[in-house]
């Protein structure tokens, strides 16, 4: 187990290196860079060249990569990059990526946290109910609902909420008024109004997955011999479900929750843009479209890091929870 974790941990830097290198190469292959885009339609070749030079975009492939990484001198002759904790700056806005991340990370984190809470609330209790009363109308309702949740694309639902919420109910999220999401410490109500719908939209699909897995996993556990024994001992249903079945049934559910958190990262890219939330996802999307190289590189690296880390935690957690599983 320990060697397994160690090996996985050692692989992380390698994967990060590959991820960043691929991102860097990608944006070098495609024609058109942030220089042209910032320069605009009324651009001259001279202006593009000058802008590229100013940003250091005319430097060699490895020079640029190295200086971003922090193993090679940058335009100012200093060595300062990701390894030194400096993510560089956006060419487009000239703002430092570190500062942007500081501003935007809380937005994305809160969105994801709320989405996770909502998906647990909408996933686990209905899943349990459905499993202990299979075949009943309640079970049917829950199952049909879960299929619907998983089938409506999140961006479509988001558009419906934002468009029809506004035109039919005169409602639009409070962040439209100030341009930023109010922190929860400042005004919890407004904060919730801002995050509730994007989080809901984001959570539906996950809730459905969690609900289904909870149901099937619990159904399976309930068939085990030890549950039969419990029944035969005349224990009450509540005690059987809560004390005996649920604990074991939750192991695969925990795993899937972990994996879904990874999925949340991707989902946030689209949902943040739909709800005009200035989080990490929106930032990444805008930067990709604007070919803002350093921002994309840095954000992708960060996203990938979190994703890989979550996967590792899930795997390790799974092994820890279910002693039957042992990794080589």
């Amino acid at each position, binding site marked *: 187990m320990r060697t397994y974790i160690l090996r996985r941990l050692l*692989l992380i830097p*390698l*994967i*990060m290196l*590959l*991820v960043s290198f*691929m991102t860097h190469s*990608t*944006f070098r*292959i*495609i*024609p*058109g860079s942030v220089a042209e885009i910032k320069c605009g339609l009324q651009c001259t070749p001279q202006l593009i060249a000058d802008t590229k030079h100013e940003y250091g975009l005319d430097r060699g492939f490895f020079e640029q990569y190295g200086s971003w990484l922090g193993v090679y001198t940058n335009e100012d002759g200093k060595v300062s990059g990701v390894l030194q904790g400096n993510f560089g700056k956006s060419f487009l806005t000239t703002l430092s990526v570190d500062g942007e991340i500081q501003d935007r990370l809380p937005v994305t984190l809160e969105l994801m946290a709320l989405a996770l809470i909502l998906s647990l609330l909408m996933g686990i209790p209905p899943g349990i109910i459905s499993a*202990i009363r*299979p*075949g009943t109308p309640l*079970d*049917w309702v829950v*199952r*049909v609902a879960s*299929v*619907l949740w*998983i*089938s*409506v*694309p999140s*961006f*479509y639902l988001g*558009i*419906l909420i934002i*468009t*029809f919420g506004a*035109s039919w109910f005169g409602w639009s999220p409070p962040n439209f008024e100030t341009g930023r999401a109010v922190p929860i410490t400042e005004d919890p109500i407004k904060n919730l109004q801002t995050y509730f719908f994007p989080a809901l939209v984001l959570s539906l699909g996950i809730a459905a997955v969690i609900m289904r897995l909870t*149901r*099937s996993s619990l*159904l*399976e556990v*309930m*068939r*085990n011999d030890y*549950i*039969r024994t419990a029944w035969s001992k005349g224990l009450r*249903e509540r005690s059987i479900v809560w004390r005996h079945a649920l604990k074991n049934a939750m192991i695969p559910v925990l795993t899937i929750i972990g994996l879904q958190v*990874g*999925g949340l*990262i*991707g*989902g946030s*890219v*689209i949902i943040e*843009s739909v709800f005009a939330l200035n989080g990490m996802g929106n930032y*990444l*999307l805008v930067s*990709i*479209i604007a*070919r803002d190289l350093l921002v994309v590189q840095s954000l*992708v690296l960060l*996203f*990938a890091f979190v994703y*890989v880390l979550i996967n590792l935690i899930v795997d390790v957690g799974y092994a820890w929870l279910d002693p039957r599983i042992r990794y080589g």
Partner: protein
Amino acid sequence: MAKATALELELLEKGIPRAPLWRRLLRLAGSQPLGVVGLCFIGLILFCAAFADYIMLHNPQEIAVGPVSEGPSWSHPFGTDRLGTDTFSRTIFGARIAMIVGMSAILFGTTTGSAIGIASGYFGGIVDSILQRLIDSLLAYPAVVLLLAIIAVVGDEDSPVKEFLREPEVHLGFLGATIPLGPAGVIPEGTVWGVPNFLDVIVIALAIGLAVAVGTARVVRGAVLSLKENMYIEAARAMGASDFRIMLRHIFPNVAALVVVLSTIFLPIAILAEAAISFLGVGVPAGTPSWGADIGDPSNRAEAFDGSWWVVFFPGLALSIVVLGFNLVGDAFRDISDPRLRGGGGGTPGM
């Protein structure tokens, strides 16, 4: 239930003919009504995709076929948009775009993915390590971001990929030679099956396919790892069969079923992916009657906000129906393959 299965098996062994196929199917349908509904949805969409030309009332691209921004009516069941385009026709035709992109992506993705997966699993060692680290890092991208990055590379008007697809040939600079790999314009740039900018749409499909390939390769490799320990592989090798032959004749047939299953899982995902990136405005060319593009189009959204809800609502509904169809059928199959999880039975489980 288990008893019934055992009985069937017994009958099968004795060679006594079972109930006719249609009756068995009917019985299956009776036990999985939601699955049947799902199949109907998929069938409906496939039907629309195939026979769009006959169902559509107008050319989905044609402007000014009716009044501007008018609500649903008999002549325009889903209303019209700001340019007087018929939303019904666009929604119906969207099925074709979705299916073309979805199917091409799956075809390309699962083929490449299984090839990589088989090679990786079969050869093991350094090849496997390199390929797996590459796949690890591709999987580390959030899916949407991976797609956006791939599209940034291949989607450009003059990207090498598009150039290659226009004229499939390889330039060998050092020999000064050009090796043609196929006739120019195999994938036409113009309108094919009514799909405008066909090449652009296919390139989007290939980009999605690439993402599918990554997922496929990982799963197939896992299967191959256990397969290759089998005796018959050893035997084939001992008989002097080449690696390529073993992979093609002995390993591939054994993972084929898995690949088919993967394809059905990935198909709705691919359709959703196309919709999502077109929604973000970086997918199919603007004006293409794609569901995602119609939902995300800024003018459509403004129109919907102004009260012309139909321009956004119906394309999204169609998209949801496809995904719902696949999910329902997927559920039904899971139930059939693992009857213990089925809803029926009644009473307390295990009793």
